[in-house]
């Protein structure tokens, strides 16, 4: 049985955290994994800090990622690192906006998808699988700009 992979997303309400977690969720779901996604919203939608957990593998039990368990931590801003770094396991990978040239994003709202592009470099899923998920989770008028953002984050 393969290990469960733990991916934690952190940002502020309104930055697209839940959308990009859903996109990754779609990718791993379509690849046939068991998957659990946990999030807390509510008060947090008013611009407060939010985190979202995605776990996948052959069999996932708890939906939550505890401190020291995350294989990947994706932050929407460098200011989110301090509050969430304790979730990363030793040797876990931090994915952050400075991993690529944010100024090249034609639409700043696509930062979340660009970060997924940066994350995708560390995962084995084919690019087309990611693109399918982006298209499935977003309205058609946003496909092109988000596909470009994804490739920018991926560095291709």
């Amino acid at each position, binding site marked *: 049985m393969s290990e469960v992979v733990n991916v934690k997303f952190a940002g*502020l*309400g309104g930055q697209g955290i839940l959308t990009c977690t*859903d996109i990754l*969720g*779609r990718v791993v*779901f379509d690849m046939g994994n*068991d*998957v*659990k*996604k*946990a*999030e*807390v*919203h*509510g*008060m*947090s*939608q*008013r*611009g*407060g*800090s*939010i985190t979202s957990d995605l776990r996948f593998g052959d069999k*996932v*039990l*708890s*939906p*939550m990622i*505890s*401190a*020291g*368990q995350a294989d990947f931590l994706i932050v929407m801003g460098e200011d*989110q690192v*301090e*509050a*969430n770094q*304790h979730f990363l396991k030793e040797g876990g990978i931090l994915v952050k906006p400075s991993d690529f040239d944010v100024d090249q994003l034609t639409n700043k709202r696509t930062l979340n998808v660009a970060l997924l592009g940066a994350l995708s470099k560390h995962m084995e899923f084919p690019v087309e699988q990611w693109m399918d998920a982006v298209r499935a989770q977003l*309205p058609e008028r946003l496909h092109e700009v988000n596909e470009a953002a994804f490739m920018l984050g991926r560095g291709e």
Partner: protein
Amino acid sequence: MSSERKLMSGNEAVALGTKHAGCALGVGYPGTPSTEILENYAKLADCKAQWAPNEKVALEVGIGVAFAGTRTIVTMKHVGLNVAADPLFTVAYTGVTGGMVLAVADDPGMASSQNEQDSRNYARAAGVPLLEPADSQEAYDMTKLAFEISERWNQPVILRLSTRVCHSKTIVVPSDSKEVPAAHYERDIKGRVMIPAYARPAHKKMRAKLAEIEAWNNAEGPNPIIGNSSKLGIIANGVSALHAQEAAPDAKVMKLGMVYPLPMKAILEFIDSVEECIIIEESDPFIQTEVQAAGGKVRPRLERYRYGELDVVRVKRIIDGDDSEEAAPPRGKPPQLCDGCPHRASFQLLKNIGCTITGDIGCYTLSVLPPFETMDTCICMGGSIGIGLGMRHVLPEEQARKVVSVIGDGTFMHSGLTGVADMICNRPKYGHVIVILDNGTTAMTGLQEHPGTGKTLDHNPSGKTVSLEATCEAMGVDKVVILDPSREMEAFEQAVRDAMASNDLTVIIARRPCILAVVRDAKINRGEKVR
């Protein structure tokens, strides 16, 4: 019927399970984390759903549906069950004809609530069976099971959810679905009119049903035992059982799906089958207390784990008996009123005047945080008015005149009207001031409609709008002032100052739509999809 796997939230799974159980009407009141159950249910084909003004009315409407012989789901958050408790305790006596399920979402850790009360206590207190799913598949399956149990024993059933279960997405494979039974009324006076003479036998009948349900739960309830260790046994409910399986892969786990009435015989047998047994449950030591009362030997949970959510790390600590201080998680950025929110101008004004604000439940509760820090109390839905009146009755004049009740339009419809009636009837000597922050929506829970918006759950016109001002005037309020808090700052300030200085009963309606609702409504008007 498709057996396709789907990735869905617990709330979506309850909605689909309700449709597949053959439900005639869904009714509820929005409240995090339960809100999306009814919203998702309403989007499914041929599913009728509506928001009630509050949870008590929602449950009463549900009782009517069930008395009429067909099926209903009633949704609310945990504190909503307090509001609905009055009908709950007596419908537990009468029982129901069609299936009735109350989906009640608890919020351990208080992601968005004023307390972390444990709804299982209501099941025991009222005598209502309670099921508790751990993930979305179980949420789907147990919703259908809850309807079956409800109809088999003619008893309402609580489906207890938690924030984690409601808002986590996990894989669901849906199964078969049932037809909605045709509604048909049959009179049963002794069964449904709870005068003492009829209620006495009804109480005994209810206890007999619960005994039967407990026997069923012992024999074939949804309580699987996972693993076969003879050393450590863990009894756990809901999502805690998943944490426990991961925290202690070698333990034998009894995963309780029906937590009231507990399958006590099966539990005691389980305890006997292991060297040591621990109960892993969030919130109150509900199972533990019952098991100990029945003579079951379990290691008691350390008190610190009553508070907040559990996760794998905390469950490991419980198993290890670790009572050391837990590391406080770093604090993130707190939520705040949106930029451009009309409440901002209102609270800046009330802060400048130096009011004592008895507050209420909604986005505007955020005004307690910087930069406003201008709310003195917040207890429950509608509480602002009664609490303000109580203060006005007893405080010396100088302090009494400063007291202002601040409440939102949705909360006013939920529980504010009776407060106004009390104000008219028991008039404080120096009068009183109520400010209704009318942003035309139930904003905090995600922009739901209410009777004052004149729209139904699906945002279509309901035909009539309950007018705040006409209602207040008709009830006997001396003075009703309506203004725009963002555009009429001076008039607003004058109105508040005049009201505080006079002995009048004044209602000031600060009316300006929620900026998020404006954006959402524009999308609807353009024919775009909204969440």
